[in-house]
């Protein structure tokens, strides 16, 4: 099995492949790998000529968006990915923060709004295919050679000096993903084609796909699980990617495209199951982003599907571990090269070849003073969008997740470290356990527990109505079986539904910032 290091490498392989890369739209239009390669090459050439060095791409499930992403990266242009469904306020805030030179969005209205908001150049783009199959590979080589000159042609003398090392000239653009913000505000994670392809390789080692497989892509490409597992992994190893046709067809896409593999998050999967929207063609369901309950796993297995759960973070380009054994569907086995350890406090730490370059520090910028000593003294590859990358401090990433390793070396997840409140005496309160019991007792589900003045408080959101009148009695019942320090000592109303991530996880840090 081939491991690729650059998008350019897979792009070369695609140029001679007549297999179907992408199917999309109401009439199931198909794009072959060779056509995809040709369109990327053409777009990359335009990007090089335009001299764009970084671009914000609003991701959707249009083939043009995939082509644009690959073309940018191959031509050395850094890309920031934001999902089209991001609420306006967040979308514009992230776009302003990213401060890209240009913006690409397939929705012309959104493109105009973003450009007005951020003061950057709009990019309109129609993929073109002038493919001559037999010449594609040769043209690609010729184009890459000439492109290195054209990049330099568009740089100022100052920039040329900073780009003068061969390594920088040959580098591909980096990809910036925003984390979901479960434990903190969103962070901008800098990944590379190498780290993402490494993650694809990891996935392929544990769960192979190939020609004949159809992977249905329903998840946003701006999330690393969606990017790798619903797109890059399949394209790297010859499967066909069926691009979801949008919300209207969410329940019919499975039957329409007849996928063999469905990478999905638990909430979406449950909805598809409830609506009986999973087709007979489906052989494999790959779950990511959050754990799936055992009832759903068993139901899928009963339907004849193999269920795989993946564990990974944006910072590790997704894949760290994947389940392998259908009889033990929660035992996660480490991907190739992933070194998983359990720290003394139970936290999972990991070292992996798929590790990010670092986080972007938006508080600092060098774009305005590109000629200053500060800019000159730094390797430009340590900057994206004019902001410095905070490099990974050690080779291990502390994930914030809690888990254990069994005798076979398989990882079992037990919770989030941030879901644990540590009392002044060191006693730990595991929030999900409290939340489950309190939810059952009080009859509300939009609640959580936080620490205020070093004591546990119950916080209730307003999505389900008011706090019950007998709350004191209910809490007394909850508290009577607990030691003094572990008792809930008050109720706080959040005033609105509790803030959650897209996968439903409570953003406790945001609640604490608001109430404590």
């Amino acid at each position, binding site marked *: 099995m081939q491991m690729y290091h650059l998008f350019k490498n897979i792009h070369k392989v695609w140029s001679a492949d007549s297999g179907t890369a992408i199917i999309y739209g109401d009439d199931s239009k198909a794009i072959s790998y060779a056509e995809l390669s040709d369109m990327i090459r053409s777009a990359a050439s335009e990007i090089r000529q335009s001299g764009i060095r970084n671009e914000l791409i609003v991701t959707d499930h249009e083939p043009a968006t995939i082509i644009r992403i690959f073309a940018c990266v191959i031509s050395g242009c850094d890309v920031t990915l934001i999902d089209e*469904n991001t609420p*306006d306020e967040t979308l514009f805030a992230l776009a302003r923060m990213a401060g890209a030179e240009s913006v690409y969005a397939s929705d012309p*209205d959104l493109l105009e709004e973003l450009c007005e908001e951020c003061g950057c150049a709009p990019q309109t783009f129609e993929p073109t295919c002038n493919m001559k199959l037999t010449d594609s590979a040769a043209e690609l080589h010729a184009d890459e050679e000439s492109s290195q000159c054209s990049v330099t042609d568009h740089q100022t003398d100052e920039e040329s000096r900073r780009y003068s090392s061969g390594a920088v000239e040959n580098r591909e653009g980096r990809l910036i993903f925003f984390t979901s913000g479960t434990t903190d505000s969103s962070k901008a994670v800098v990944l590379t084609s190498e780290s993402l392809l490494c993650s694809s390789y990891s996935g392929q080692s544990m769960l192979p796909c190939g020609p004949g497989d159809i992977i249905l892509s329903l998840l946003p490409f701006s999330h690393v699980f969606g990017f790798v597992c619903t797109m890059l992994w399949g394209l790297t190893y010859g499967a066909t990617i069926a691009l979801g046709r*949008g*919300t*209207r*067809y969410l*329940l019919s896409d499975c039957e329409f495209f007849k996928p063999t593999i469905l990478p999905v998050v638990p909430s979406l999967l449950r909805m598809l199951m409830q609506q009986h929207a999973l087709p007979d063609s489906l052989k494999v369901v790959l779950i990511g982003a959050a754990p799936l309950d055992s009832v759903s796993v068993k139901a899928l297995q009963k339907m004849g599907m193999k269920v795989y759960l993946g564990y990974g973070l944006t910072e590790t380009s997704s894949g760290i571990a994947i389940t392998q054994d259908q009889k033990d569907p929660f035992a996660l086995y480490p991907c190739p090269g992933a070194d998983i350890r359990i720290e003394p406090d139970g936290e999972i730490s990991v070292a992996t070849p798929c590790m990010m370059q670092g986080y972007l520090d938006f508080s600092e910028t060098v774009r305005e003073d590109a000629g200053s000593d500060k800019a000159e003294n730094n390797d430009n590859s340590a900057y994206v969008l004019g902001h410095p990358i905070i490099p990974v401090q050690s080779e291990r990433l502390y994930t914030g997740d809690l888990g254990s390793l069994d005798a076979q070396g398989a990882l079992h997840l037990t919770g989030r470290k941030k879901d644990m409140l540590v009392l002044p005496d060191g006693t730990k309160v595991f929030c999900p356990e409290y939340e489950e019991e309190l939810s059952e007792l009080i009859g509300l589900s939009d609640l959580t527990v936080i620490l205020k003045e070093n004591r546990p408080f119950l916080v209730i959101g307003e*999505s389900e109505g008011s706090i019950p009148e007998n709350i004191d009695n209910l809490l007394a019942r909850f508290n009577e079986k607990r030691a003094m320090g572990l008792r809930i000592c008050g109720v706080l109303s959040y005033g*609105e539904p509790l803030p959650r991530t897209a996968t439903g996880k409570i953003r406790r840090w945001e609640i604490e910032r608001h109430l404590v």
Partner: protein
Amino acid sequence: MAKLSRDEIKERTLKIIYNCVPELNGVPLDEDSVVNTDMAMDSMNFILVICKIEAEFDVKIPNRKWNRLKTLGQLIDAIEKYSK
């Protein structure tokens, strides 16, 4: 599909909302009622409602527009607009 009156659109939309979000059964909703994730509808319920409404009325409301719809009245406006 024959052009529907606003009342017909409202009636069918409410039927979908009540079907998709059983928790709302018995809760009266008028055109000023908030019918997005700000009320008792989680993101998956909301997506299911979008999916069913677009299929029911044979419309495709751009995802960006859905994010900006808050009330039942705005939702009916959008269905009328994109049905044309």
